């Protein structure tokens, strides 16, 4: 993707973020209290029209943005934490410790297993077990990203361990723990963290997809996927705005986040300067990201 495209994506993504944060203060109507205007087409008073219960589509879409963003953020943070722990177990040998070796292999298998479960089915299963609601959705979305981050970190750690710094730390007599926490992890993490920015767009899309299929947050909570599926019933009768506007905003946001995330990542990993080894891991993750998006599409 060229530079201009990325800049533009950054700009639009940034503006939309601002919109999401400032939502409650700038949206004209309460997203949860219906107005008297039912199924109105877009007009000056309702720029995106209203739906069957009289809710202002624009206000609801902005409010849904907050929901989706919150879920995606929480999921990415959760998956980062879990992914880092698993990545360390899978990728670092702790000086050839036997116990950690076995544990590492087990984690590897686990990651393979998790990645082979289709996301949507997993989401449905989670919702069936724990009920609809934010925690289930966050867990499902996080679940998808854990192997991505864990793998990424694993490959950075593996190459770090072959590299000079780990050797040097060991030869100086530093403990394995100090080597890992003070030197290896801080130098390997930035590529993983940088990829979190790319993962955010995918997480939003996944959140919406789960709701669209009925495995998302509980109905009154405004959410893009739910809005799109709810509005879809009215498209045949000509009330296209109910699902088209949220759909457009969703697509735009996901694309912008993906592009902006890529430039954030490149800038972050560029800043660390010497992360040639991590590059392999990055393309790996980017690949997985597109895979996720493809699987959902």
């Amino acid at each position, binding site marked *: 993707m060229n530079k201009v495209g990325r800049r533009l994506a950054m700009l639009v993504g940034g503006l939309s973020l601002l919109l999401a944060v400032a939502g409650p203060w700038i949206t004209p109507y309460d997203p949860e209290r219906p107005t008297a205007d039912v199924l109105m087409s877009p007009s000056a008073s309702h720029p995106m029209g209203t739906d069957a219960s009289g809710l202002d589509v624009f206000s609801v879409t902005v409010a849904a943005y907050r929901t989706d963003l919150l879920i995606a953020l929480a999921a990415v943070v959760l998956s980062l934490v879990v992914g880092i722990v698993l990545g360390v177990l899978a990728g670092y040998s702790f000086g050839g410790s036997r116990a950690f070796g076995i544990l590492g292999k087990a984690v590897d298998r686990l990651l393979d297993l998790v990645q082979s479960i289709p996301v949507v089915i997993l989401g449905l299963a989670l919702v069936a077990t724990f009920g609809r609601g934010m925690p289930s959705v966050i867990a499902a979305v996080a679940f998808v990203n854990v192997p991505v981050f864990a793998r990424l970190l694993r490959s950075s750690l593996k190459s770090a361990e072959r*590299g*000079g*710094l780990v*050797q*040097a730390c*060991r*030869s*100086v*007599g*530093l403990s394995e723990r*100090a080597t890992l926490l*003070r*030197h290896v992890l*801080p*130098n390997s993490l930035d590529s993983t963290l940088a990829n979190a920015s790319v993962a955010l767009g995918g997480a939003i899309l996944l959140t919406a997809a789960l709701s669209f299929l009925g495995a998302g947050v509980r109905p009154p909570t405004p959410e893009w996927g739910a809005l799109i599926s709810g509005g879809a019933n009215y498209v045949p009768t000509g009330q296209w705005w109910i699902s088209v506007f949220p759909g457009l905003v969703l697509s735009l946001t996901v694309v912008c986040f993906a592009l902006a995330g890529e430039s954030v990542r490149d800038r972050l990993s560029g800043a*660390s*300067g*010497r992360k040639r080894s991590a590059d392999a891991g990055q393309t790996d993750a980017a690949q997985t990201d597109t895979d996720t998006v493809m699987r959902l599409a």
Partner: protein
Amino acid sequence: MSSMRLQVRDLVVEAGRGGERTQAVRGACLSVAEGQVVGLVGESGSGKTMTSLACLGLLPPGVEVVGGEITVDGHAMLTLPERDRRALRGPSIAMVFQDPLSSFHPGLSVGTQIVHSLRDHGVGRAEAKARCIEVLGEVGLPKPEAQARRFPHQLSGGMRQRAMIALALANRPRILIADEPTTALDPTVQAGILRLLRRLADDGLGVLFISHNLGVVAGLCDEVTVMRNGEVVESGPTARIIGDPQHPYTQTLLAAAPSLPDPVEVGDPIVVREEPGAAAPDSRVDRDAAVYTLADVSRHFVSGSRGRKTTVHALDGVSLSITKGSSTGIVGESGSGKSTLARLLGALDAPSSGQVLFHGQDLTGMSKQDMRAFRRKVQFVFQDPTSSLDPRYTVEDTLREALHTHGVTDPAQVARRFTELSEQVRLPKSLFGRYPRELSGGQRQRVAIARALAPRPEVLIADEPVSSLDVSIQAQVMDVFRDLSENDGLTLVMVSHDLALIRDVCDSLVTLYNGTVMESSQAAAYYEQPMHPYSSALLHSMPNPRHIGRLPEVLALGEPADPTSPPPGCRFHPRCPRAQDLCREQRPALTAMPDRVLACHFPLTVPAVTAEVGER
């Protein structure tokens, strides 16, 4: 002049975009005549490569010629349109790079690529195939038909470089530009390539040879051009420029280039009586003085799955001892097991069999506490300081951590050690606040050395500590090591493939080949008269700036043996010019001599005429 193949006059090359343009080459002049090898010398960044790329019309984007003239084989290169330039590349001018792997297409066989380059210049299919085999033979590849079918990664370093030269020569160019073509190779292999280039020039090719190694240039080149910061500072016949340099810069370069004294020429085989039991570890060494004793140590790396296991015999039955306060050089070609041995000594790796004793104590199975004590006593310096330092730690952070790890926490004491370390490695304390990226390569390596010295170790192990540095800096860093071993009583173990570089530092040498010890000797005796044919081959392959017009000799045929299937008998026999039937059948035992321990059935002892074995 019709014999002039390449002429560059007042060349100016600018790089950079927008307003920030820098001149990479400023008014360079040089010329190469038919049958001549011209050396282009200078440190990294002096504009050598830019000059040569300009000659080919292959400057990277953003870099352009803004002045001067280039004449290639009678054509004014700079005024030609790109299509005509392309037609010249191959039949008129061709280039060979330092790293042939990156200039070959990895997915096509060597032969296919040579044929392609011929077909591009309108050669018929059958003729192209014939020429491909012919040129592969010309550059000295054995069994050219078989080599043509192989892929670049299947060839060894030296073979690959020869194949690269074959690719360049396929269209019979009149001029060949070779950019550091032997820098990545072992001296033994380099010597063969240099001889090849000399032969090609003697047959009429004009060669522009780019190098930072004055020893290589002295032996190979007829004329030398010295560049610095994009300018030519001096040029003329090799005998004058290298033999009697006028410009101070050339003098500095020459002063930094190490040179070896000529070893005694030796020849006739004399059978050494083998005394069973007299073998190593060196029986002359007082056991108490031995810091390290290795008895029959092997390190094998097994890879692959059950059915197809390959075993790399990185070290096989190594016995030696290292005396307290000595400085021992571990030498040998790449892949001979030097680094593996160093890592075993530093307990960064464990032997597959045999024992590594440190003051009589086995390193494997050491208690945690003993290991901690060992880590304090034995420190390591790695080849690449950039990767062995934490980019997020300043010099001070790095050193403080090393001190803290070994219990020096009192601020006053830490500060005192900082001062001492700064003096020991000659790194000004004003640089202590800097991050590695803000330091030069030489300064970084000094930091790495200081870190190793922080716990006041008894032994310092250094693996090729200067080979990633510029030549002029190598000597300065080696001085630090010499001082440490001479004045501070440190036991020094230094791995190196450069015999000239460690001559001033080491007082004893262990020569490894294919994972086994060939010779283990006092350094003075070794340099004066190598007795093992392999040691002799190593010494004679070292380029020497004092040998003007004399190429390093090739006394080891071909390239190092594959450590996955070591040859039977003497490991060196397939390459040894003195090999007899006995060598093929029986592995020579390490035998003690007055000033060395030796594993050879027919060592060199009596001075005689050296056998010449050709360029390979």
